[in-house]
């Protein structure tokens, strides 16, 4: 909790990537969260194309501290026959709150037909879909802008807000053109003024704090929001209020 705001990290992971120091030990993760006042983190496992393996690992991780972690479902069009049954299982049985997609692990740009069943599912259920976005041809933010209007009951969150300046411009344009597009803030790039740019051009009500933990420490990413030149009301929206609304948290 920071100044009365329940802080929700919208972008986290389950799984180990040892060579990069990404270690999903709950004690390590919670220590970092507690040190900075981060209440809850949304997590997914993107390393298993069947969906089931990673989602089960996510469920076990969340179950250790269900008051602190929120599971997101992962599926991949690399195994298309498994996508919809696994999404239904993850949402209905595992109680996951949203969907995470990682297009660079596939050959298909996110606006191509193999992804469409996922978007239809999200639209029917009114779920949020968190994308990895960046400069990879599968993950360009402008592609989200193309699909968002076709699925108005779903919400689309652009992880990393495109990451680099050109793609960040695409992400902002997608949010400006579509009321169901949101921008998430985690990035290895911590350019001066980037959070202020997102707020000024897309609106504070469309920005979500995320960290990419445990690949990156949630504290340095939180520092981007806290040290930005923004009114307190905008920081409250970014740190938790927008996520609570999007995930329909009580």
């Amino acid at each position, binding site marked *: 909790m920071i*100044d009365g705001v329940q802080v929700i990290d919208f972008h986290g992971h389950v799984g180990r990537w040892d060579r990069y120091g990404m270690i999903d030990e709950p004690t390590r993760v919670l220590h970092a969260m507690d040190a900075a006042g981060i209440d809850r983190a949304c997590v997914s496992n993107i390393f298993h194309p069947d969906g089931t393996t990673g989602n089960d690992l996510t469920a076990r991780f969340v179950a250790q501290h269900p008051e602190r972690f929120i599971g997101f479902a992962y599926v991949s069009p690399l195994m298309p026959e498994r996508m919809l049954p696994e999404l239904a299982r993850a949402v209905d049985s595992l109680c996951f709150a949203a969907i995470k997609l990682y297009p660079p692990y596939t050959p298909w740009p996110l606006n191509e037909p193999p992804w469409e069943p996922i978007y239809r599912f999200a639209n029917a259920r009114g779920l949020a879909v968190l994308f990895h976005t960046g400069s990879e041809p599968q993950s360009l933010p402008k592609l989200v802008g193309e699909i968002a209007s076709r699925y108005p009951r779903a919400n689309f969150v652009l992880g990393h807000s495109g990451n680099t300046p050109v793609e960040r411009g695409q992400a902002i344009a997608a949010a400006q053109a579509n009321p169901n597009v949101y921008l998430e803030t985690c990035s290895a790039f*911590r350019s001066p003024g980037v959070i202020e740019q997102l707020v000024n051009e897309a609106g504070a009500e469309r920005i979500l704090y995320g960290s990419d933990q445990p*690949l*990156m420490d949630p504290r340095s990413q939180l*520092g981007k929001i806290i040290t930005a030149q923004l009114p*307190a009301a905008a920081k409250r929206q970014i740190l938790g209020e927008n996520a609570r609304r999007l995930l329909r948290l009580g």
Partner: protein
Amino acid sequence: MTSLTFRPRVPVFDANVRVGDLPGQPAPCRERAALLAEMDRCGVERAVIYHALTEEVSPVEGNLLLEPWLGADGRLVPQWSILPTATSLAQVQGLHRQGRVTSVRLHDTRVAGLSFRPWAYDPLLAWLSARRIPIWIPLPGADADELVTTLQGHPDLVTVLVGAHYVHHLMVRPLLTRLPNAHLELSRYEPIGEIEALADEFGAHRLVYGSWYSQYAMGPLLFYLHHTDLSEEELALVCAGNLVRILGPAPSLRSGQALSAAYPEQSRRSEGRATS
């Protein structure tokens, strides 16, 4: 207690600030006053600065462009870039004779075909070591084997390894182990819990705050450092005290004596911890 606003509670001396334009990237701060204003906003008292042109184009010309940024107040401490050519070495030697060299920054020549090998760098490194001039070495583009092999030939040379990213995670511990006079600059190093872990394993005296402004904002890493398990003494060392010790007393630091005076006790403790 975290709040929606943040100010550092210890003095801050930034070890890694880039000024001036890259060929393809104009800098947000166009001149010294603007940079000082940004430092004031973030609670940064002083900064070691180098010129952007020295990164990819010319250390010699970039060093000349650093001059307009410097002032008499000592808040911006020049860091001269260097590569192993006669012209570059002569430039830095001339500055040294004027008492203006407190540190240098290695220009990455590896992409141009000059490996960081003893046969290429020993004369330069020997000159620096003999004069107790510390050298900042950018890790991106560096080869870990070359770093260890070459720097072990100069055991008294103090180094600051700059720009470690999570992609360098596997090399950080072996480098700090094999190079006892090496320090890790933290601007890009974000694996979860690693600052506390490295402080426990190697001592906070091996860690140095740097922002890599203007590529990165100054505030986020400072916020992070203030929300770790570091003690107040360790925090003060990482945020400024270690850098004061590394740069050492020098004519160009006279205006920073108040900052130096704030850390002698921590510096002594740190050195004790280093040998324990």
